């Protein structure tokens, strides 16, 4: 062959090769792109399908707080996403110590297959729960394809999907197959994402609810009444701090502890039954426990949605103080009746005596008997005046009109007035007034009422010795100057436990009972306190105890320390009203 022909032929062959190779490369590239595109399309389709299933799961879960429902929903949807022989799930009921094992079998498997799945789930759960799971705790239900004992297939692929909500394992899902190498991290990742997201949502929702529940519990805990709630199965739902305090219960009492603490004064179970049976609230009942009087109110709690009874709330209201007050009121009423009836009887008897022999009586006798009537009527008038003053105070209509003046004049005047009464009991009244006593700011009429009360008490509760009245200026640090007046006696003194009630409306009931000579409304100190405080002062007492006498102190503002007085003319009058509940 000619060299030129050879060259042409070689060139042609090379061209054909290049063309062929190029064609193959282009074709391969095209085929590769088609395959990649197909793969992308399949991947896209798979993602779309996963998204659909995820949405379905999300919609079905909604705002459910039921962990079991969430596990069942996820478990029920997995079959659409992954090849499997069986999908099983376990639900852990911590309260009841129960485990529910359910399986949905997709294709015939042997019973050993299910046993193997169950074993794998138990081992995994034990690791998470950190406690053994007893066979007796597990209840089992298998549904779907029939189990075939002749089949030999064991679990060759599986994975567990634990569902943990708020740090607790609530369930576990297992997907298993008789075929090998079906599941890996790539094709199951999204399932773990679903489980995590669902658990996260529920955990957050539970946290919100728990916070709200805590707020309610705190509100119940801070109530001033004792509260318990019992459900329809007599299970204690809540007990608040006040009840634990009232019944001296430990921190987390059981219903038994409460029943025990009530020591037979209340049949709680019957009360719960009764409350559930009744349409209306039960009438309140009173019980006495640990020296306390408790009013017990029970009412059933109805679920708003189902309109069914879900329990009973029992309220324990401490009425010990109210009861004591009621007793004091009754005693006070009896005392007042006696204080008014005795002089009335005396007046009636004297008048009857006068009527019987009025013409036979000498002028001296008549004068004596009429004086007795006048004195008795005066006593009655004083009692009635005290009662009226208290009524005015409580209505906020008791006026105290303060003005500048010499307190020493008022003190000396009252000391003089009581001298004869004191002398009749061999008591001596002495007055000691500081030389530099400044002008005071007080109600000149009402101050007499205060001094009268303190002096009459001193005379009333003393049988010997001296009654000392003192007045001196006093200034503590930067406080405005006060004048302190004290009345000291060597009489029956004051017991520490009666001191608290001394200035109350019924204070004299106790003290009066210790002295037969004590007469009157017993409201004097209560009125005195009201007057002193309305004038801007304070009143208190000191006593070493019964038999050691007592000293009553009260303060009156010095006129110079009262801004109104300084600002206005010396004769300006300021009206303070006593307003009491």
């Amino acid at each position: 062959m000619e060299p030129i022909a050879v060259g042409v032929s070689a060139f042609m062959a090379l061209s054909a090769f290049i063309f062929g190779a190029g064609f193959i490369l282009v074709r391969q590239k095209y085929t590769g792109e088609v395959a990649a595109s197909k793969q992308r399309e399949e991947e896209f389709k798979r993602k779309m399908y996963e998204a659909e299933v995820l949405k379905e799961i999300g919609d079905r879960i909604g705002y459910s707080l039921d962990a079991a429902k969430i596990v069942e929903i996820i478990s029920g949807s997995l079959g659409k996403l992954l090849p499997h022989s069986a999908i099983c799930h376990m639900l852990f009921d911590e309260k009841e110590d129960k485990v529910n094992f359910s399986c949905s079998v997709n294709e015939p498997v042997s019973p050993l297959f299910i046993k193997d799945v169950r074993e794998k789930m138990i081992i995994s759960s034990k690791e998470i729960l950190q406690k053994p799971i007893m066979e007796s705790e597990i209840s089992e239900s298998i549904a779907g394809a029939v189990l075939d004992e002749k089949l030999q297939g064991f679990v060759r692929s599986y994975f567990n999907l634990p569902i943990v909500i708020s740090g607790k394992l609530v369930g576990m899902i297992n997907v298993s197959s008789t075929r090998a190498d079906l599941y890996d991290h790539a094709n199951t990742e999204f399932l773990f994402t679903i489980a995590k997201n669902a658990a996260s949502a529920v955990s957050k929702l539970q946290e919100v609810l728990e916070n709200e529940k805590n707020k309610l519990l705190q509100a119940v805990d801070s109530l001033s009444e004792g509260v318990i709630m019992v459900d329809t199965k007599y299970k204690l739902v809540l007990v608040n701090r006040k009840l634990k305090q009232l019944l001296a219960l430990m921190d987390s009492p059981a219903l038994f502890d409460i029943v025990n603490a009530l020591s037979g004064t209340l049949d709680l179970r019957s009360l719960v039954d009764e409350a559930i049976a009744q349409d209306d609230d039960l009438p309140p009942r009173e019980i006495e426990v640990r020296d306390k009087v408790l009013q017990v109110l029970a009412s059933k709690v109805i679920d708003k949605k189902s309109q069914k009874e879900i329990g009973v709330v029992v309220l324990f209201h401490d009425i010990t103080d109210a009861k004591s007050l009621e007793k004091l009121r009754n005693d006070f009423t009896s005392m007042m009746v006696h204080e008014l009836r005795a002089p009335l009887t005396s007046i009636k008897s004297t008048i009857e005596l006068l009527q019987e022999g009025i013409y036979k009586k000498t002028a001296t006798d008549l004068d004596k008997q009429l004086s007795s009537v006048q004195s008795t009527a005066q006593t009655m008038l004083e009692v009635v005046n005290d009662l009226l003053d208290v009524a005015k105070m409580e209505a906020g209509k008791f006026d105290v009109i303060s003005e500048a003046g010499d307190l020493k004049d008022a003190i000396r005047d009252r000391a003089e007035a009581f001298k004869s009464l004191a002398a009749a009991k061999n008591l001596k009244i002495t007055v000691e007034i500081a030389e530099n006593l400044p002008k005071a700011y007080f109600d000149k009429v009402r101050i007499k009422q205060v001094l009268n009360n303190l002096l009459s008490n001193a005379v009333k509760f003393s049988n010997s010795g001296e009654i000392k009245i003192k007045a001196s200026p006093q200034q503590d640090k930067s406080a405005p100057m006060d004048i302190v007046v004290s009345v000291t006696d060597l009489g029956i003194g004051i017991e520490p436990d009666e001191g608290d009630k001394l200035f109350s409306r019924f204070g004299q009931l106790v003290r009066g009972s210790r002295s037969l000579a004590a007469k009157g409304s017993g409201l004097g100190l209560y009125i005195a306190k009201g007057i002193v405080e309305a004038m801007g002062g304070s009143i208190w007492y000191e006593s070493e105890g019964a038999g050691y006498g007592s000293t009553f102190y009260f303060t009156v503002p010095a006129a110079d320390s009262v801004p109104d007085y300084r600002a206005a003319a010396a004769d300006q009058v300021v009206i303070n009203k006593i307003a009491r509940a």
Partner: protein
Amino acid sequence: MPAQSQSRDYFKNIIAEIVKKHVVLYGPQIAISKASAIEGLEVTSEGEVKRVTGDSEYILRQLLAGYMDLSTYITRTVFLQILENYPENTRKHFAFLENNQDMEKF
């Protein structure tokens, strides 16, 4: 043995324990595929750690992060349990896990 080298051995042991635990918890395929995805970590199909190449502490942290994708709570709990058996010197590398109470609970 120098302390640093001892720590590295400890990290390798912890890696092996972590993988084994997760095999039990989730099943071998998922636990092994997660571990195998970490560069420098070779795991057998039985879940045995064959080789750890490079910074073993970094690999352990990567492994934990991978398993935490499955469940933060479970991995953290399991890891802290395993860590209890190791000296203070090793534990302190992961103190942030012990102290962080606000970590997600699931």
